[in-house]
């Protein structure tokens, strides 16, 4: 029996090594390991052996089986590798790949993602407050008295409906600053680290304005928040979003809802602050900011004698257009939804 087994092993190995393709190899496998294969039939004879021999021969038989199976595996690999080499000679690797599907996220979504992540790193929670608002939240609580000339700058859309006796007319919010009041109402008490990103609306449409746009508004209220903290936040954002070598500066300005108020500039990315035809003496306007006006804190139910805060509110489209290299020259194309445009990004 042992001789038979060894004979089977050698023949099998020889045939396996000689196999030229998968088909031949399969046939050899069947010939030896199949239901009526030589090894299989041989193993069926095992019980006919005397008891003392069964264990020894059984072990040998299993070894032979294992050896044949391993040889088959090795040959299989070798054959497919060979097949591959043949195939490789036949394919033109410069042909296009079979691409998995890929759509596009809107540039605004991409910008919002980046802005949100940057501020999340310094502990600001993202929120989104109503687009349709009461005048009280968008103006009165932000320290705009009735009929104040400063309201003109916001070119507000009004809703055709009854005004509320306490909250005033219903409008489409022209800025995310209404979110400051909403956040103070929600939190009731500092610490506040808010990032409100939402749609805003203004009655304007030209190269740098669309009637619907997005703003992101930061609000930080706590004990001992100062102008230095605002500067720190602005510098951090400018470096993160625009580039490590960019700087910001703040200049005096006026908003009803901040005191002191600032205009924020960023150093020009093209000339690095030296001055060129694309910037104003090395600086570009970024947006407005300021320390939250005590009347605004009061309207939000927060005691200005204990707490201070800063806020800033900028256009998402605006910082997007200022991103190096993007070269979009007319804001309106962002809302044209032309696939030719969307598919570029």
């Amino acid at each position, binding site marked *: 029996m042992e001789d038979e087994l060894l004979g089977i092993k050698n023949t099998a190995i020889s045939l396996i090594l000689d196999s030229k393709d998968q088909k031949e190899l399969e046939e050899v496998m069947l010939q030896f390991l199949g239901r009526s294969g030589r090894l299989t039939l041989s193993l069926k004879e095992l019980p006919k052996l005397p008891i003392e021999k069964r264990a020894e021969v059984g072990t040998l038989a299993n070894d032979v089986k294992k050896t044949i199976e391993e040889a088959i595996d090795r040959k299989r690999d070798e054959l497919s590798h060979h097949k591959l080499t043949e195939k490789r000679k036949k394919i033109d690797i410069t042909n296009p790949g079979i691409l998995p599907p890929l*759509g596009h996220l809107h540039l605004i979504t991409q910008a919002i993602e980046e802005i949100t992540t940057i501020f999340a790193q310094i502990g600001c929670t993202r929120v989104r407050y109503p687009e349709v608002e009461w005048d009280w939240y968008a103006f009165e609580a932000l320290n705009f008295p009735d009929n104040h000339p400063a309201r003109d700058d916001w070119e507000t859309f009004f809703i055709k409906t009854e005004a509320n006796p306490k909250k005033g007319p219903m409008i489409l919010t022209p800025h995310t600053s209404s979110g400051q009041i909403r956040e103070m109402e929600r939190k009731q008490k500092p610490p506040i680290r808010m990032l409100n990103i939402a749609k805003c609306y203004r009655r304007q449409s030209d190269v740098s304005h669309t009637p619907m746009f997005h703003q992101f508004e930061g609000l930080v209220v706590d004990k001992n928040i100062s102008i230095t903290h605002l500067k720190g936040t602005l510098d951090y954002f400018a470096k993160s979003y625009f580039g490590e070598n960019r700087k910001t500066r703040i200049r005096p300005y006026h908003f009803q809802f901040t005191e002191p108020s600032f205009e924020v500039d960023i150093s020009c990315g093209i000339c690095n602050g030296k001055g060129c035809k694309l910037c104003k003496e090395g600086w570009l306007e970024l947006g407005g900011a300021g320390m939250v006006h005590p009347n605004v804190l009061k309207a939000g139910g927060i005691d200005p004698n204990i707490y201070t805060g800063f806020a800033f509110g900028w256009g998402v489209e605006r910082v997007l257009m200022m991103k190096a290299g993007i070269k979009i020259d007319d804001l309106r194309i962002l809302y044209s939804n032309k696939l030719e445009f969307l598919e570029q990004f």
Partner: protein
Amino acid sequence: MNIKIIDSWLREYLITKASAEVIAEKLSLCSVSVEKIEKIDGDLIYDVEITSNRPDLMSVIGIAREAAAVLPQFGIDAKFIPLEPTKNKKLGKELPLEIVNNPKLVNRICTALMSVKIGNSPRFIKERLEKSGIRSLNNLVDVTNYVMREVGHPAHVFDFDRLNSKKLIIRESKKGERIITLDEKLHVLEGGDIVADNGNGQIVDLLGVMGTANSIVTDQTKKILYFIDNNEPYHIRKTSMNNGIRTEAAIINEKEIDPELAKIALLRGIELYRKIADGELIADANDIYPNKTRPKTVNVFKSKIDTVIGIDIPLEECEKILEKLGFRVKVKNQILSVDIPSQRIADILNQEDIIEEIARIFGYHKLPSMLPPLVEVESYHMDKNEFYWENRVKNTLKNWGLTEVYTYSMISEEIFEGPTENAIKLKNPLNEDLVYLRKTLIPSLLEVVKNNKKNEQLKIFEISNIYEKRVGDLPKEIRMIAGVIKRPNVSFFEAKGIAEQLLNTCNIKNVTFKTSEHGGIASSVYIEEDYLGEIELLDSNIVDFEFNFEKIIKLANLSKVYKPLAKYPPVIEDLSIIANENIKTADIIEEIYAQNELIKEVTLLDQYQDTRTFHIIYRSEEGNLTADQVKKVREKVLTALEAKFHAKLKK
């Protein structure tokens, strides 16, 4: 508001060696933004943006005072020379005109009756006005504009003889009263405008806004009434906005102007009329001043200054800065007691206003830059965060080949679906395309398809709010997700597949599809009993879907439960069933599952006419399944299908 300030004019009140570029640069850093410097005929002109809270800077003198406070902070010597107009000798003659004022409308009226000789202004006055962007007309009108620009208080001049009256009554206009302004335009007044009545019911001036044609100076003018009125700002604003008259005078007067300036404007004007129009006072200058500005003091805690600014600026420096700006300061026990000069009474109201003055002159650029401390504001639960899910869903759709669009929230009447009575409408739309707040995203997406006619195929989606009217409250803003697939002979099931897989990635179970109540080739989608939205095949090339995204976020979850790996192998077989095509696949599958818990998975593999092939996986947790066990279950299934649906096994 922007004004042009001439450098040479400025330097009559500001003594400094600094160049115009340096003055502009430092002012922009600490005071007002100088947007550019123009050079015209050897003179330099600053184009300055003045914010609405600083009307006191709408003048040469105002800017000079600021520059004198700012430049020394950069080590540059600068001195402010205040305007001191000549005083006039008392004549003992009273103004032959009774002015009846209403203190609710006008805070102060300063007048001077003068004999004059009308003519052209001398060249230097003409040039200064023109370079400042003001047209030179004649010496009489030019003085009023010159004074306005120099001193910062608007001024007016009447032809006294044309007034032809003994009385001048200051009152509110009545609705419907008509006037012709000096530019020959007819205005029908709304009522409530501040006007001067000549005692006969005739309006001879629209105070603070624009003169009327019937009383202004002409070539024949021999006597003028030089008239400075300090008006109640809200009246001025209403008049100016209602009638569309936006003169520089109106723009200045609608902000609170210091009444003390009226006197200075009066004296300066008299001086100038003397100089350039042979002017001589006929009567003593008159001053009606019912609403004298009350002195104001603001107390500022040094600790508050330190808190807001963030560094310690020594008390002496704070004092020095404030005094340079015209404030008077007394210090006691770390509290600054600050007296506000009359030109700042309107805009300095509290501690923070004073702190702004100190900080900006000190120099924002000198302050360090630090991040606010990190504090725990609230804990972050990723699996419940709406922005996490929104971002995840958007990226999923993007990776399946869809492109995101952002369409306007407002739509035209044309594409608004349903009765417009329930719609939220804009009172002042920009154009007819953006009038109603939408209640569904689909029409907007279909417009995108229309605007991309070149594309035979497209897959777009959007996640945005719709707006539902609520009585007496703000509308309910509901976040929706919608998509449109356009392709020749597109399949309904392509949209259904997206919906199924999307809900699947959000780990939402128990999704059912029912025939839509809205008709058409459509399906209503439910999560348990909760309605989610619709999928609709609009025509042979377009299919769309729209779901309530808030419901998806509410049910989306990251919960993970480990199910132990199967111990025993499954038995898998395909059963081809013949059943009437009207019978729903979902019902057949439900029935199959119901027969035995050994049936672990049933999916539709194939469908051809009335034959449906189901792929069935049987498995037991107890042990290997025998052919016999499977046979028993299979027969139960076939029996049930026959009984319920008259379905038969295909041979």
